[in-house]
C-alpha cells in the first residue's frame, strides 16, 4: 500500500528537515492536510456560487464561516495531544451534562431539540461530543495495554452508547450515528477481537426488525422506505431523491458546465446549497469533476491515516484513526444519500456544503490531526 511507503518516506524526510517545514511545524501546520482542506474549501466556494444562484452574500457568509473554522483549526492544532488527553474526561463530562440540559430545556428547531441557548449564543452540545467521544474512548482504551480486555470493552461501549442515545432522543439520527461510529472506530482500531465483531454484527442484523418497529420515528421509516421506491410518493418524501438523481445523471461525463445546471437553477432541486450540494456539483462538473473531488477527499483521508500510523503513542494513534474514519463516513453517507443508495439523513458534504455548525467541528478535528502530526518528538538519531 502506498500510504505505508509514504509513511516511511515521511519519516526519513523529517530526519533531514527543511527550513520551510520547520517553520510550518512551529505553527503546528501539516502542509498536505492543509492543501487538501484548502482545495476542498475552494471547490466548495465554486459550487456554492452556482448553487446559491450566484449570490455574493451567500459566498461572503460561507467565507466568514470558513475563516472562523480555519482559526479554530489552527487554535486546536496548538494544543498538544497530551493536554487533550488530560482534558478528555472533563470535556466528556461537560458535554454529557449539556446533552442532558438540552433534553431538559433546550430549544426546539425543525421538530427536534438540539440547541442550548447560553444567552449570548446558541450552541449544539452534540457537536462538542463529536470530538469528545473519540477523545474519551481513545484516552480510556490507551490507559491499558491493547487489545483491550472485556471489562474495558464494556465500559468503553457505555462511554459511546450514553451520548449516542441522548442525541438519538433529540431526535438527531444522523449525528448520533456519527458519534456512535467515531467511538466504535476507536474500539475497532484498538484491536477488538474478530469473534466479538462478527457476533455483534450478526446480533445487529437479527435485531433490525425490533429497531425498525419500535425505535424509529415515522419520518425515519418513511425515509428508508422512500429509498427503495421513491416513485411511491413523488411529491412527498421521494421528491428529493428523484430530483437529485436526475441532476446527477444528467450531468454525464463532462457535466453541463459551471452555472449551467438546469435542475438546480430551475428550483427542481431542494436543499441545493446545503445537504444536496453534491447533486449540483455532479450536474455541472460531471463524472470527471466527481473523480477530482473524490480524489481530493481520498488524499485528505489518506493523509489522516498516515498521521495516525505515524503517531507516537496509542492515544494519538487511536484518536487520529477514528477522526479520519469519521470524516470518511461523512463523505460516504452524504454522497450515498444524494445519489440514492442510502436513506436521507441530514448530513452535510464536509467542507463543501453551505453553513452548518458541523463545519467548525470538522475543522477542529483536522486541528487535532495536525497537532498529533506536529507535536511528535523527533526520535534522536
Amino acid at each position, binding site marked *: 500500500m502506498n500510504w505505508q511507503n509514504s509513511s516511511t518516506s515521511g519519516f526519513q524526510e523529517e530526519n533531514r528537515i527543511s527550513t520551510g517545514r520547520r517553520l510550518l511545524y512551529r505553527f503546528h501546520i501539516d502542509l498536505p492536510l492543509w492543501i487538501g482542506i484548502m482545495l476542498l474549501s475552494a471547490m466548495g466556494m465554486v459550487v456554492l456560487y452556482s448553487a446559491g444562484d450566484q449570490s455574493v452574500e451567500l459566498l461572503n457568509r460561507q467565507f466568514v464561516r470558513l475563516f472562523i473554522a480555519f482559526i479554530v483549526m489552527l487554535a486546536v492544532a496548538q494544543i498538544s495531544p497530551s493536554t487533550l488527553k488530560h482534558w478528555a474526561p472533563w470535556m466528556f463530562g461537560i458535554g454529557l451534562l449539556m446533552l442532558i440540559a438540552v433534553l431538559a430545556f433546550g430549544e426546539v428547531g425543525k421538530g427536534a431539540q438540539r440547541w442550548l441557548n447560553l444567552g449570548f449564543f446558541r450552541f449544539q452540545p452534540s457537536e462538542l461530543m463529536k470530538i469528545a467521544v473519540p477523545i474519551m474512548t481513545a484516552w480510556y482504551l490507551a490507559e491499558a495495554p491493547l487489545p483491550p480486555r472485556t471489562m474495558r470493552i464494556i465500559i468503553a461501549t457505555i462511554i459511546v452508547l450514553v451520548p449516542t442515545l441522548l442525541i438519538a432522543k433529540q431526535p438527531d439520527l444522523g449525528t448520533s450515528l456519527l458519534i456512535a461510529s467515531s467511538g466504535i472506530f476507536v474500539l*475497532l*482500531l484498538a*484491536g477488538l477481537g474478530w469473534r466479538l465483531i462478527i457476533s455483534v454484527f450478526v446480533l445487529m442484523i437479527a435485531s433490525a426488525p425490533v429497531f425498525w418497529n419500535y425505535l424509529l420515528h415515522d419520518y425515519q421509516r418513511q425515509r428508508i422506505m422512500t429509498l427503495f421506491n421513491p416513485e411511491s410518493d413523488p411529491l412527498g418524501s421521494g421528491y428529493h431523491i428523484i430530483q437529485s438523481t436526475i441532476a*446527477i*445523471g444528467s450531468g454525464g461525463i463532462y457535466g453541463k458546465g459551471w452555472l449551467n445546471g*438546469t435542475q438546480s437553477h430551475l428550483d427542481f432541486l431542494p436543499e441545493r446549497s446545503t445537504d444536496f450540494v453534491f447533486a449540483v456539483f455532479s450536474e455541472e462538473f460531471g463524472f470527471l469533476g*466527481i473523480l477530482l473531488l*473524490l480524489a481530493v477527499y481520498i488524499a485528505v483521508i489518506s493523509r489522516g491515516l498516515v498521521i495516525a*500510523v505515524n503517531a507516537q503513542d496509542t492515544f494519538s494513534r487511536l484518536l487520529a484513526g477514528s477522526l479520519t474514519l469519521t470524516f470518511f463516513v461523512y463523505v460516504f453517507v452524504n454522497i450515498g444519500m444524494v445519489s440514492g443508495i442510502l436513506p436521507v439523513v441530514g448530513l452535510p458534504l464536509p467542507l463543501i456544503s453551505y453553513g452548518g455548525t458541523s463545519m467548525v467541528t470538522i475543522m477542529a478535528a483536522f486541528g487535532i490531526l495536525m497537532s498529533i502530526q506536529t507535536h511528535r518528538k523527533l526520535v534522536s538519531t
Partner: protein
Amino acid sequence: MAFNSKQTLKDHFHETQIFNQRVLIAAVFMVLLFLLLLSRLVYLQITNQQHYSTLSENNRVSIRPIAPTRGLIFDRNGILLAQNLPSFTLEIIPEHVKDLDATLEKLKQLVAINEDDLKEFKNNLRKKRRFEGIPLRSRLSDEEVARVSVQENELPGVIIKAQLSRHYPQGKLASHAVGYVSRINENELRKLNASNYSATTHIGKVGIERTYEDLLHGKVGFQHIETNAQGRVLRVLERTLPVSGKNLYLNMDVKAQAIAEKSLAENNGALVAIDPRNGAVLAIASMPIYDPNLFVHGISSKAYKALSTSPERPLFNRALRGQYPPGSTIKPMMGLAGLELNQLKQHDDINCPGWYMLKNDERRYRDWKKEGHKHTDLDKAITESCDVFFYDLALTLGIDNISSYLAQFGLGEKTGIDLRGELDGLNPSRKWKRRTRNLPWFPGETLITGIGQGFMLTTPLQLANATAAIATMGKRFKPRMLYGIQDQQYQPIKKTKTESLPPIPISEAKNWHYVIKSMRNVVHGLHGTARGIKYNLKYDIAGKTGTAQVFGIAQDAEYKKEEIAKKLQDHALFIGYAPIDKPRIAVALIVENGGSGGAVAAPIVRKVMDQYLLNLPPEDKNTENKINGAAIQ
C-alpha cells in the same frame, strides 16, 4: 521516547502492529465503499446519462398533481345538493408578455378587473416563477371568456384556465346540513396529508362537506409533464389518474326540508325530522340560513362580518347547537316515568286550581291556565297540558327518578349524529347541581323540571330523537345524515348501517299505549292543544305542544303577549310523529319567540309531515330503486 522495560517495548510493538493491521483493513473497506459510490455514479452518469438527460437537459420533466373531482351530494330522492361546475380564471404568464402594463390595460377593457385583483396579481408576480401562470381574475362570466378568446392572438401570454369549483344548486336550502367548502387554511394544511391535497385548493368546512371530507375528496393523481426551457407544457409523458371522491346520498328529503325552512322563515328556529325505524334524518332545518356559494370563492370580509355579527346568527346551526328549555314537550315522557316507575296509576287524578304550592313555601307555581283545569288525570294533563298535574307528579317522582328516566331518552347527551358541533343539552340532577354550582337541589326546582323549565335544556335534534323513541316504544337509533355511498356515477349505492342506541326498558306496554293515546288526543281530541291541525288530516298524529319561557314572570304579573318585546316572547314547540300505527316520521320543532306551540309550531310540523308522508313511494319498499333511478337521470 524512553522505554522502561522489554515488556512495554514488546507491548508497544504488538500494539502498533495491531493498529497498523486495523488501519489497513479500514483502508480496504473505504476503497470498497468508494468503489460502490463510483459504480452508482457510473450507473447514473454514464450508463443512464441519456435517460436522465431527457428527464432534465432540454426538456424538463415536472411532476404535477391532478386534483380529484369532489364527490357529489344528493338527497334521498337523488336531487342534487352539491356539484362541481367549471369556472374560468384569467391567467398571465409573465415571460410571454412583452409589455405587461399594456397587456393589463387591454385586458381591463375586456373584463372587469378591480384594485384587489391587481394587488393580488402583483403580489404573486414577485413570488411565482416567470413561466408559471399567475391568476388575474377568477370566475369569468361566459361573455368575458368569449371576449378574451376572440382577442387571444393579440394577447400573448394571456390564458384562460378552466377548473372545477364547488357549487350548491339549491342555494341556501339545507346549507347548515350540507355545509360548504372553502380555501384550505394554514391550520388545516398542517393536519392534512400534503401529498394527497397537493392539487386541492378547497376543503369541507362545515356540515356533510366536513364530516365526510375523506370520502368526498378522493385521491390525487399525478402527471409527468415534459416542458421546454420556457416552462411550457410540451406533452404528458405519464399519467396516474386521480380517483374521484365518492358520491354521497343523504337521508334528507329536500322537499320536506324546503317546506320546513320556508315555514320557519319569518321566525328563527329549527326543525328536525327523523325516521323512527332507523334514525335516518329526513329534515334538519335551522333558520335563518346563509348561501354556501358565498364561501366557495372566498367571502368578502364585509359580507362575512355581516353574517357573523348579525343578531339573528345565521351561521349558528340551531338544530344541533341551539339549547332550549323543552317546556311541556317532555310531559309525555314524564307521564311514562310516572306509570312505568309505579308512582302513578292510569286513573289517578288531582284537582287543578290553576296553581300549586309546596308545604312551607309561600310561592305559587302557576298553571298556564289561570282558572285551572279542575279534575285532571294523566290523559287530560297531556291533552290539555296541565302544569299542576305534572308539578305534583314531579314531586312524587323526585329529581333522581326524573333525571335518570329522561336520560334514557337521550336528553342531556349528544345523539352522535354524523355532523360536527352537536351540543349536549342539559338534563339536571342533584349531582350536576352540586358539581357545577356547589348547591343542594331544592324541591321547587323539581317542580319546574317536571314541566321542562328551569335548568333543563335540549337541542331540537335530541327532542326529535326522543320523540322517535316514543314512536318505536323504546327502540333508539343514532341519527344519521348519510343514506349511502356511491363509488362512481351509475354504480350501486352502498347503504350505510344503522346504529342502535340502548333501548328504553318497558315495564308494561299498556303504559306506553296510554301515553301515545293521550298524545293522539293532543291533535285529534276535542280539547287537544294542537286540535287546530287535525282537519283533513289523512293520517293520525301523536304530538305534544310546548311553550318555553324565555324569562320568568313576576309572581303577580300576567303574561301579556303584546306588551313583551318580540325577543322575550316564549318559544313555541311541537313534537310529534305519524302515522301512529306505523310510524314513519318523528319531528321536533322549535320556533323562537313564536308564542304558542299549538297555534304556531304544530301547523308547520303538519306541513312537513304532509309533504313527506303523502309522497312516500307505495309501501315504502322501493326507496332504494328510486334513488338509483333518480341518480341515473
